[in-house]
C-alpha cells in the first residue's frame, strides 16, 4: 500500500469524499431534526428519499416536467409524506415504549420498499442527466457532485437561519426542551410536530434531488444509504445537527479513502467498524450529551 501525498488520484479521492460528505450532511439533517425535536428515529427515512427520487424521475422522464419543477415537486411530495407518516404512524405510538417507534418505522420501510417494487419494478433507472466534469489541476471532479455539495451547504445554512431567526424555528427548538409548557405560549405541540415532520420530509426530498443526479434509482436503494445516514447521525450525537454535519464528512472520508486502496466495499467496512468502535469510546456521539 504505497501512496504519495502528491498523488493526484489521492487528492481527487479526498475531495470526492468531501463532496459526498456534503450530501451525507444534508441527509442527516432531516433525521436529526426529527429525532432532536420529536425523539423518534425514522428507520424508513431512506425509503422516503427513494420515493422522492422516483417522483422526480417520473415527472422528468415520463411527463416532461422541467427538472427544477420536478425537484420542487419531489421536495413537496416527501414533505407531505413526512407529515403523513407522523400523523398516521408515529402519533399513535408516541407515548409507548421507544422501541415501538423503531419497529413501526421498520414496518413502513418494508411497506414502502414493497410498494415501490410493485409499482416501479426492480430495474435500475437513471435520470440520464449528465453535467460532465471539471478539471482542477490533474483532478477530474464531477460537476453533479459539486452541485450537490453546494446545495447541501446552502440548505444547512438556510435551515440554521430558519431555526434561529423565525418564530416557528424557535418554537421547534423550544419544544424539544419543554414540551408541556408550549400550550401556554399559544403553541399546539401537535401542530409543531407535524410541521417538523414535514420539514424533515422536505429535507429528505431535497436529499432525493441531489441523489437522483448522482445515482441510479432502485426500490431497495434505501438499504444502501439508510444505515449510513443513521450511523452519521448517531456518530454526531443523535439530534445534534452540527455533530451530524461533522460526522458526515468524517464518514465520507472513511468510505472514500477506504475504497481507494481496495474494492469499494472495504471503504464501507472500515467506516462501519469505525462507527462501532466510536460507539464504545463515545457512545453519545461526537457532540452528543450524556443523557
Amino acid at each position, binding site marked *: 500500500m504505497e501512496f504519495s501525498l502528491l498523488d493526484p488520484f489521492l487528492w481527487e479521492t479526498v475531495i470526492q469524499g468531501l463532496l459526498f460528505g456534503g450530501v451525507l450532511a444534508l441527509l442527516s439533517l432531516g433525521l436529526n431534526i426529527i429525532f432532536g425535536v420529536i425523539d423518534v*428515529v425514522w428507520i424508513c427515512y431512506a425509503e422516503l428519499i427513494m420515493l422522492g427520487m422516483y417522483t422526480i424521475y417520473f415527472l422528468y422522464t415520463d411527463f416532461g416536467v422541467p427538472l427544477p419543477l420536478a425537484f420542487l415537486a419531489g421536495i413537496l411530495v416527501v414533505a407531505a409524506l413526512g407529515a403523513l407518516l407522523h400523523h398516521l*404512524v408515529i402519533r*399513535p*405510538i408516541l407515548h*409507548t*415504549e*421507544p*422501541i*415501538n417507534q*423503531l*419497529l*413501526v418505522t*421498520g*414496518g*413502513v*420501510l*418494508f*411497506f*414502502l*420498499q*414493497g*410498494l*415501490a*417494487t*410493485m409499482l416501479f*419494478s*426492480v430495474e435500475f433507472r437513471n435520470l440520464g442527466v449528465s453535467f460532465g466534469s471539471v478539471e482542477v489541476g490533474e483532478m477530474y471532479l464531477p460537476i453533479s457532485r459539486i452541485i450537490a455539495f453546494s446545495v447541501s451547504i446552502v440548505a444547512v445554512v438556510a435551515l440554521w437561519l430558519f431555526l434561529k431567526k423565525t418564530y416557528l424555528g424557535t418554537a421547534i427548538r423550544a419544544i424539544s426542551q419543554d414540551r408541556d409548557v408550549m400550550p401556554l405560549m399559544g403553541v399546539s405541540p401537535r401542530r409543531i410536530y407535524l410541521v417538523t415532520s414535514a420539514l424533515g420530509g422536505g429535507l429528505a426530498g431535497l436529499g432525493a434531488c441531489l441523489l437522483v443526479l448522482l445515482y441510479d434509482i432502485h*426500490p431497495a436503494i434505501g*438499504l444502501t444509504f*439508510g*444505515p449510513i445516514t*443513521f*450511523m452519521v447521525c*448517531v456518530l454526531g450525537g*443523535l439530534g445534534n445537527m452540527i455533530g451530524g454535519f461533522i460526522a458526515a464528512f468524517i464518514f465520507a472520508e472513511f468510505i472514500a479513502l477506504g475504497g481507494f486502496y*481496495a*474494492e469499494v*466495499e*472495504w471503504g*464501507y*467496512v472500515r467506516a*462501519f*467498524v469505525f*462507527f*462501532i468502535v466510536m*460507539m*464504545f469510546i463515545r*457512545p453519545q456521539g461526537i457532540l452528543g450529551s450524556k443523557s
Partner: protein
Amino acid sequence: MDASTSRNVMILKGVGLAAILAFPLLGFSDYILHIAISILLWGFVYTSWSVMGRFGLVSLGHGAFLGIGAYGTTMLWNLAGLTPWVGIPLSVLASAILGLLIGLPCFRFRITGHYFALVTLALTEVARLLIVALRDTTGGSLGVTPNGVVSPEDPVSLYALQFASKTVWFYIIFAVWLVGLLIWRAIDRSMMRYAMEAISQEEDAAASLGVHVTRTKLTVTVISAAMTAFGGAVYGQYQQYINPETVSGIAISLQIVFAVIAGGMFVQLGPSVGAVITLLLGEGLRLGFGHQFHGLDVTVYGLMLVLFIIYMPRGVLGKAVEVMAARGSRPGSPSPQPGE
C-alpha cells in the same frame, strides 16, 4: 390457572407434539415438508432473537450471528474439509464471542434502546459487506453452496451432516426447535427473567438491589447469539445454499423482528407463530399472485408490522394470552403468567 385448565393445556401440548411427530409420515409432498421445516427452523431463529428482545434488548443485528453460523460452517467445510460436527460448534463459539464483544461495551456504557439497535445494525451490515468484499473466498453476492456429498443413491452423510431426505431433516429440525423452546423456558423460569425484567424497567433500581446488570444482559445476549448462529448453520446445511442477503444484513434482521412482534414476543410459542405467519404469508402471496406482484409480500409484511405495533404490540399469541387471562380470571384462581 386452575387444575383442569392446566390439564387441558397439557393434553393440547401432547396432541400437538404427536401431530408434529406424525406429520412427515402422512405422505405430504416434499414442498409441503419444506414449508413445515422452514417454519420450524425460522421459528427456532426467531425464538433465539426473542430471548434478548423480550427484555428490551432489541437487536437489529442478528443477521450477523446468522451469517457467522451459516458462512462459518460452510466455509470451513468447503475450504478446509472440516466436518460440520466441528464447524458448527466453532461458528457458534465465534458468534457467542462476538455477542460478548459487542455486548460488553454496550452494557457497560449503558448503550440501550435506539443506540443499541443502531450499533447492532452496523454490525450486521459489516458482516454482510465483509462477506461480499471477500468475494473470492465466499462467492460474494452470488452466494455459496456447501460441497455436496449426498445424492438419492447415497442419501446420508453423517460426517458432512447432509441428508437427502426431507423427512430426516424434518425430525432433526423439529428437535432443534424443541431445544430452542426449552432454552426459552429455562431463561424464563430462572432468576434471570426477574432480573432482566427489573433491568428493562429501571436499571438503577435493579442495580441497587444487587442484580448484576451487565452480567445478566451479557448472558442473555451470548445465549441469543449462539442460538442464532446455530440456526444459521443448520439453515446452511439444510438449504444447501446461502447468500449474504438471506443470512446477513439489515433486511433479514428486520424480518426477524417483524416475525417475533407479529407472533408475540413475550410468549414461548410467539416467535414460532410469527414464523407461521411470515412463511405462510410469503408462500400464500407467491402462489396466489405468482410473480405478477413481485414485492407484494414485503408490502403486506410492512403493513402488518405497522398495524401490529399500533394495535397489538404483544402479537397474535400475546393478545390471545391476554384475552384468555381476562376470561379465565375467576376469584381465587391465579391468572396465567406469560410463557405458560
